[in-house]
């Protein structure tokens, strides 16, 4: 009789237990999925930034290798302080800079590139000449700007260097 009562009192307990477990598991899986989605977003952002860095560094290296007086390095801003933002910039076009073509899959519009990984970036640069006299420009400040949209919001990258002319007496 006692055994019967005990069995009767446990009736349905496994079902309730399983339901509680399912609820807890569902919450856990949803949280894990959230973490996974964030992880995928961060991985994607890392890929975007790595690619952007490669494109920007390549462009800057090409600028360094170009002749000092190359038309692509014409001054875009007259004041160094104007270089602190990318408002006055030259925008990338394949025709103007064919050496960048191996890094770029397509150019939908001037200043916008799609790289070999299929990621779309805005690519531009600013140049400011340092003028000592009317005939003497010893160096240029060059800044490369890239912006792109990623799953963690609008991203931006900037690289700056100085290119100097071979010194003359």
């Amino acid at each position, binding site marked *: 009789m006692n*055994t019967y009562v*005990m*069995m009767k009192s*446990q009736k349905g*307990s*496994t079902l309730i*237990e*399983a339901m*509680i*477990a*399912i609820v*807890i*598991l569902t919450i*856990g*899986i949803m*949280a*894990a999925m*959230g*973490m*996974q989605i*964030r*992880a*995928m*977003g*961060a*991985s994607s*952002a*890392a*890929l975007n*930034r*790595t690619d*952007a*860095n490669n494109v*920007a*560094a390549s462009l*800057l290296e090409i600028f360094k290798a170009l002749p000092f007086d190359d038309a692509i390095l014409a001054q875009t801003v007259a004041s*160094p*302080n104007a*270089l*602190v933002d990318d408002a006055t910039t030259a925008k990338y076009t394949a025709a103007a800079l064919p050496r960048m073509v191996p890094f770029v899959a397509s150019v939908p519009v001037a200043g916008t590139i799609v790289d070999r990984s299929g990621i779309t970036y805005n690519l531009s640069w600013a140049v400011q000449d*340092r003028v*000592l006299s009317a005939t*003497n420009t*010893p*160096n240029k*400040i060059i800044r490369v700007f890239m912006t792109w949209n990623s799953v963690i919001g609008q991203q931006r*990258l*900037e*690289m*700056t*260097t*100085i*290119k*100097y*002319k071979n*010194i003359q*007496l």
Partner: protein
Amino acid sequence: MFFHLQQHKKNGMTESGFVLVFSMVILLMLSFLGIWALRTSTSELNVAGGLQQADRQFNLAEGAANNEAVGVGFSLKTFYQISNPALRNQRLAPATDATFDPGNDTPNTFAGITAADPTTWPWDNLLQNYVSPPVNTPSEFDYRYLVTYLYEEDRAFIGYSASDFSAYKHQIQGTTVTAPVVVELGGIRIGPKSSL
């Protein structure tokens, strides 16, 4: 029959709560999996960011060295003029705090310059912007540099008279104020013999 019921009761009591415990274990494993994935992707992001910063700082340091090379070539700073070229390994450094740190961004002084420690080198700004940053606050375009006159190369260069001109070898180093990257250039300045 009695034996069977006893066995059933025993099993029922042993397995009580097993599903719950099992689900908790699975939950814990899922949590570790999620945390691991998150940590991996965060690491990837840090690597990408670090790579970008390394490239950025390198280009800034290279720009700094290039800027000072121009300064040497055109004597844009008075302390780049050498009074005695026969004296080797001269450090061409500022002699006042105003020229040591035009932006007043560091409490360091020109008196403490040591070649081995880039944190003691003179300061300048890549954009020549000495106004915007507050005092003692470095801006992202601040850099340090050190120029050393090495020696006079006693040889004629194409297009220059060997009796009137000579080559003066310099070592130019540039570094950013926020990263320990130093770019070094070797530069030859051609000038009137034994007089710069």
